[in-house]
């Protein structure tokens, strides 16, 4: 095993002036200036070049931006990570023209001209070589969460999980300790994977005898359950957190379960669901819209910060720097001075009351309508041809503003879903007969013929409905509504400033230079879904879509999985998901599993519940923050086994509370609900996190630098050219420090790929058991799933699994007993490279010739924002930018889906100004003593749970200096709660003092240091998202970590557990009790809505 730390110290280098070899020649010339030789210190740099130095290109996974990286590997050790100059995300070529720089004609020397990566990307080396990494499979030998483990073999682990036996002969049942000191067996709980599989499920050989599923264990015993809620196989939850793995979906499909673990409701489902509904009119996931930064000169960011967990961080940060440098106006609306807001001040920095983003957007809308400064041509266009007929430019995208709604029914007027009516300007009534305008291909209707603001009986245009709803807010006029809403937002000027802002935005939009975004700001509230719709309405009203800049979308994410290539005999999974989302509902609101009012909630009281937990019928992104609690409830059905891949930290989601010593262990155990409610918990993860620490098995995983993979969601801003001529630009992830070996398994030729922390395989393995037993360190998820698939005899694994399926991956490349699945898929998808080596070393095809001949319209194109191919010299061309954002179809201001379920008609319009609401959509307010609004954020160097244990990143946090030179430089590692000077004075709080933070969900509270700062709104307090973590290597010695940590000589890092994080004290939904405040529509966690109390304590 390679230990990079020891290696570095042992080879401490002292360069001599007389050094003469290779690259040191130039150095010796410089050193000759001095009388005595200059020498390096303790930390000598690594070789830049040399026989042992290799540069390998891959893509980063320290966050989801997937920047291209090139990694310097010296004798098998990762020494340095730099940016991949071929990556359009983060190289110096992409966007160069925007910033006015000359586009280089060639990337002639990529090794010396790397691209740019952020603090996380640079620290990836520390993630791989983290001393806290797991190295061996562990099985708990104490109570859950007691951190007492025994090391077992991979074969033992797989036998335990798959069959509940300690060996492959099925004679010794696996036992686990109970919390009370006794033991139980996995099989007695029906929790082994063999027991879970559905008898008779298509393609699955029913387990019999000892493996048979216990009778009566299929469904929950809770009344009012959805009786057909799922096939038995759904009792296995198998999936990932934020990491993307190629074969997770494959295993789920082959096993027959629908259940994975999505983190998205904790992340950005409010952002996505609002787009799903607004830009397709249906429940289709088709959009990922963000403000473009390459075109606008006026950008409004509502709580959005390109420096703080907004992917892709690197290009966004650079383009925004360019945007400001070329004179663009950045307007931010935040309750704190974020890193983006730091670039604004005064009139360009809005401070609105928390959760009033929607009100702000509505005020702007009211002003635009009042002043008629909206994009009238766009709003009046019934289809793209109408718009093209007007301006002669190509268009693919229009809105529903001029279409009619029958207010008596709440449905869009017209016959059939595709035929929507409009008012004829000559008659003021709908044209005779159904008018099929709701298609992109519809015939042009002259705008002179269309009434935008009209009504005919019960039929009104969407525009008119919005206008009337806005007027109704004040009860008098649109202008009075601006005043009213300004007051809601906390302005005391009667709306003067909002009017000026709205006018400036409209003026910018008139020259096609406006973009509005609210990523991680607007949607992170319980009213976030509707507020996000209001924000999208701003973009719709100014048509920021049909051109360069503005709001852009990508052409479609590659997805988190390479898909299931339909193995022969793969079972058909069905049933409602554990996350209780759209999959349990039809689009018209009726349920697929049971009767509304009986099985879910009552029709008489649409806000009431008869089921143990509320469903989220309009989200399709899961609701992670209460998934565990639901599983503990056994609703909609029991979960037997939960296998967490890549560190989805489901027990550390929200509102679990902790005691004053930041010890959340007891609450987490409570959430797990005892071993009999979730009998088998398995974590496959590189590091010990809160959830893994409470699992029965913790299995060591590799990091992104040790495995193959494909980008997941990729960047919403850049379509990587999946399968296109720029394939490979950063979206193939491949190991940079690993080994390959030719092996045989049961006489079948195979090829293995492994981490440097495992002993390389070699030779012939007589049986699958021998093969599994040969692994002694971290393995790839693909390997882990294939272990299980082979042992369980699942379809899709084993010799001939794909033969004749139509998805034959090629001779010798099928899913045989090799564990080579994922790699073969890469090869199938990406044919540029040879065999298993995947892509060629440049990771690309076609470039750098792509950039030859600057100004040439045909040869000089590369992928640009919005997924369009563009000539970088064309970005400001008068017409080149039009209709190139890849956006097509129709955007919807009116959503009839929201009316047909359990919401009133006002939900249809983006004009609904709620404050904090509970999971049933009713107003919620914490007790008055909790008088500060808790805000959280993710700094750019911490964007996900996994970065928590990275010491290079932990060390970056500190307080702001009060003034230049008056405080010491080193403030690293002391996260603190931000509190405004006025609020601090009222509480006797001084800078750096100790405070106790409590909430309605945590009356015991957590301790923290106070940072008094005018960088936060007076009514708010701010806690960083990434500290106060018990695990992740924070407290090694006292917790017996040394039995498994990679480097047992390294102590725990107390900085990881210092301070407080918002999760400690954030509020639970008052109805659900054990999950965070949640948007009832999108299931988005409202992580900026909790109220807290902050008191000074001594010492």
């Amino acid at each position, binding site marked *: 095993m390679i230990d990079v730390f020891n290696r570095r110290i042992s080879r401490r280098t002292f360069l001599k002036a007389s050094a003469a070899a290779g690259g040191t020649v130039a150095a010796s010339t*410089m050193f000759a200036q001095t009388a005595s*030789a200059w020498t390096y*210190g303790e930390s000598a740099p690594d070789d830049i070049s040399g026989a042992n130095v290799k540069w390998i290109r891959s893509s980063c996974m320290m966050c989801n931006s997937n920047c291209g990286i090139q990694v310097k590997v010296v004798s098998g050790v990762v020494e340095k990570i730099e940016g991949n100059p071929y990556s359009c995300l983060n190289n110096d070529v992409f966007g160069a023209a925007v910033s006015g720089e000359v586009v280089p004609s060639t990337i002639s020397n990529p090794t010396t001209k790397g691209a740019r990566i952020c603090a996380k990307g640079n620290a990836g080396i520390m993630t791989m070589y983290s001393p806290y990494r797991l190295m061996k499979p562990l099985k708990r030998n104490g109570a859950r969460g007691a951190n007492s483990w025994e090391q077992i073999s991979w074969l033992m682990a797989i036998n335990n999980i798959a069959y509940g036996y300690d060996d492959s002969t099925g004679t010794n049942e696996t036992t686990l300790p109970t919390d009370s000191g006794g033991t139980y067996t996995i099989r007695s709980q029906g929790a082994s994977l063999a027991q879970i599989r559905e008898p008779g499920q298509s393609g699955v050989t029913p387990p019999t005898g000892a493996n048979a599923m216990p009778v009566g264990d299929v469904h929950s015993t809770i009344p009012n359950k959805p009786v057909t809620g799922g096939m038995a196989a759904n009792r296995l939850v198998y999936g990932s957190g934020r990491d993307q793995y190629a074969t997770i979906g494959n295993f789920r499909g082959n096993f027959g379960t629908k259940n994975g673990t999505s983190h998205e409701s904790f992340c950005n489902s409010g952002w996505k669901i609002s787009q799903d509904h607004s830009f397709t009119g249906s429940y289709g996931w088709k959009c990922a819209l963000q403000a473009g930064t390459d075109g606008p000169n006026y950008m409004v960011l509502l709580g959005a910060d390109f420096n703080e967990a907004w992917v892709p961080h690197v290009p966004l940060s650079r383009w925004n720097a360019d945007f400001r440098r070329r004179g663009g106006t950045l307007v931010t609306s935040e309750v704190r001075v974020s890193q983006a807001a730091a670039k604004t001040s005064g009139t360009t920095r809005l401070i609105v009351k928390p959760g009033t983003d929607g009100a702000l957007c509505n005020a702007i809308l009211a002003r635009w309508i009042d002043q008629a400064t909206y994009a009238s041509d766009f709003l009046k266009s019934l289809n793209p041809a109408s718009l093209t007929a007007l301006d002669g430019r190509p268009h693919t995208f229009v809105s529903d503003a001029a279409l009619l709604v029958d207010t008596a029914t709440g449905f869009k007027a017209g016959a059939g879903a595709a035929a929507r009516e409009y008012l004829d300007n000559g008659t003021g009534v709908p044209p005779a007969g159904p008018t099929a305008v709701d298609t992109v291909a519809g015939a042009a209707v002259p705008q002179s013929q269309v009434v935008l603001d009209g009504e005919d009986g019960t039929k009104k245009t969407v525009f008119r409905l919005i206008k009337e709803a806005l007027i109704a807010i004040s009860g008098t006029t649109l202008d009075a509504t601006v005043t009213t809403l300004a007051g809601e937002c906390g302005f005391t000027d009667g709306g003067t400033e909002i009017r000026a802002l709205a006018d400036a935005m409209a003026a910018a939009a008139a020259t096609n230079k406006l973009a509005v975004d609210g990523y991680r700001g607007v949607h992170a509230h319980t009213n976030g879904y509707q507020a996000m719709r209001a924000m999208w309405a701003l973009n719709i009203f100014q048509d920021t879509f049909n051109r360069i800049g503005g709001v852009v979308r990508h052409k479609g994410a590659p997805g988190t999985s390479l898909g299931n290539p339909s193995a022969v005999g793969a079972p058909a999974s069905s049933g409602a998901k554990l996350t209780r989302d759209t999959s349990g509902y039809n689009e018209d609101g009726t349920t697929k599993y049971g009767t509304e009012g009986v099985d879910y909630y009552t029709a008489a009281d649409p806000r009431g519940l008869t089921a143990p937990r509320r469903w989220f019928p309009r989200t399709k992104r899961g609701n992670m923050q209460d998934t565990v609690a639901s599983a503990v409830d056994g609703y909609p059905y029991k979960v037997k086994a939960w296998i967490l891949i890549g560190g989805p930290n489901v027990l550390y989601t929200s509102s679990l509370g902790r005691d004053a010593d930041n010890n959340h262990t007891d609450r987490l155990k409570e959430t797990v609900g005892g071993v009999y409610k979730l009998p088998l918990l398995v974590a496959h993860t590189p590091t010990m996190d809160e959830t893994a620490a409470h699992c029965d098995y913790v299995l060591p995983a590799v990091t992104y630098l040790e495995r193959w993979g494909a980008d997941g969601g990729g960047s919403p801003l850049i379509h990587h050219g999946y399968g296109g001529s720029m394939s490979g630009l950063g979206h193939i992830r491949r190991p940079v420090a690993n080994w390959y070996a030719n092996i045989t398994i049961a006489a079948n030729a195979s090829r293995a790929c492994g981490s440097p922390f495992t002993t390389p395989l070699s030779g012939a393995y007589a049986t699958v058991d021998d093969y599994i037993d040969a692994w002694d360190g971290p393995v790839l998820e693909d390997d882990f799933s294939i272990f299980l698939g082979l042992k369980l005899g699942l379809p899709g694994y084993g010799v001939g699994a794909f033969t004749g399926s139509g998805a034959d991956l090629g001779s010798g490349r099928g899913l045989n007993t090799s564990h080579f699945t994922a790699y073969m898929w890469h090869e199938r998808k990406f044919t540029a490279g040879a065999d298993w080596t995947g892509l060629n070393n440049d990771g690309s095809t076609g470039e750098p010739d792509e950039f030859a001949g600057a100004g040439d319209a045909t040869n000089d194109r590369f992928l640009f924002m919005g997924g369009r191919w563009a000539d970088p010299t064309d970005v400001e061309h008068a017409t080149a930018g039009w209709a190139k954002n890849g956006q097509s179809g129709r955007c919807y201001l009116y959503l009839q889906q929201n009316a047909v379920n359990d919401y009133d008609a006002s939900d249809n319009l983006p004009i609904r100004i709620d404050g904090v609401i509970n999971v049933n959509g009713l107003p919620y307010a914490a007790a008055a003593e909790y008088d500060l609004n808790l805000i959280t954020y993710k700094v750019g160097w911490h964007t996900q749970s996994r970065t928590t244990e990275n010491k290079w990143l932990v060390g970056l946090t500190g307080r702001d200096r009060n003034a230049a030179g008056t405080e010491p430089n080193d403030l690293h590692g002391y996260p603190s709660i931000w509190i405004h000077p006025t609020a601090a004075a009222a509480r006797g709080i001084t800078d750096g003092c100790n405070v106790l933070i409590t909430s309605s969900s945590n009356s015991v509270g957590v301790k923290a240091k106070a940072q008094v700062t005018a960088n936060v709104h*007076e009514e708010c307090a701010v806690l960083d998202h990434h500290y106060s973590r018990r695990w992740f290597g924070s407290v090694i010695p006292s917790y017996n970590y040394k039995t498994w940590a990679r480097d047992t000589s390294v102590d725990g890092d107390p*900085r990881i557990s210092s301070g407080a994080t918002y999760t400690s004290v954030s509020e639970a939904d008052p109805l659900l009790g054990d999950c965070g405040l949640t948007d009832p529509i999108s299931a988005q966690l409202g992580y900026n809505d909790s109220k807290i109390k902050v008191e000074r304590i001594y010492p």
Partner: protein
Amino acid sequence: MAHQAGFLVDIKRCSGCKGCVNACKAENNTRPQQGAFKGSVDYRRVVFTSPGRLTNTDTRNQSRFFVSTACYHCTNPACMRVCPARAIYKRGTDGVVLIRYNMCVGCRSCQFACPYSAPRFNSVARKMQKCTLCQHRLAAGLQPACVQTCVTKALRYKSDMTHDSSTMSVAPPDGPPGGPSGLSAQNFKRDAATYAALVGTSSTKHSQTLPNVGFNNE
């Protein structure tokens, strides 16, 4: 001295992402050598400053800025003058200030003398270490690691800080001199007052020592 090399820091562009800190750490192997912290030094830091944050109540106009800071390879280095072991010297070719590691006695005098605390104490080696301006990379034709990785192109390397001429190349290697972002050296203020406002040095302590760095905060 033929030239004076240094960094240009465009405060307007710096987003405070701290990528430079970790690029330096990886390049120069300044990671912890023992335990969680020991032996870890930061040649480069990003200082977040919010002037008057304790007393100002106007959040909308509260100033907050980020300055990437390291050794400035001063014209007249205070660290060099106070070093009892004469371990610190200023190189003639480009003005880079270096520490002769084998002569350093680890007394930390240089750290206290430096207005910016650029020399850092390695508690394992018990020696001082600091930014070398990545001289090993410069020798190989590369940019310093921090400059190379700078996400917003706020950090730039300039081989000659002594000539504020627009003909001097201060743009990134992929671009022309100057350019629309206005990055000619003339745009960078190098007076002590600007410097003090940004990174917090005492203007009287070493007023004769202008740092070899340019700031653009216009």
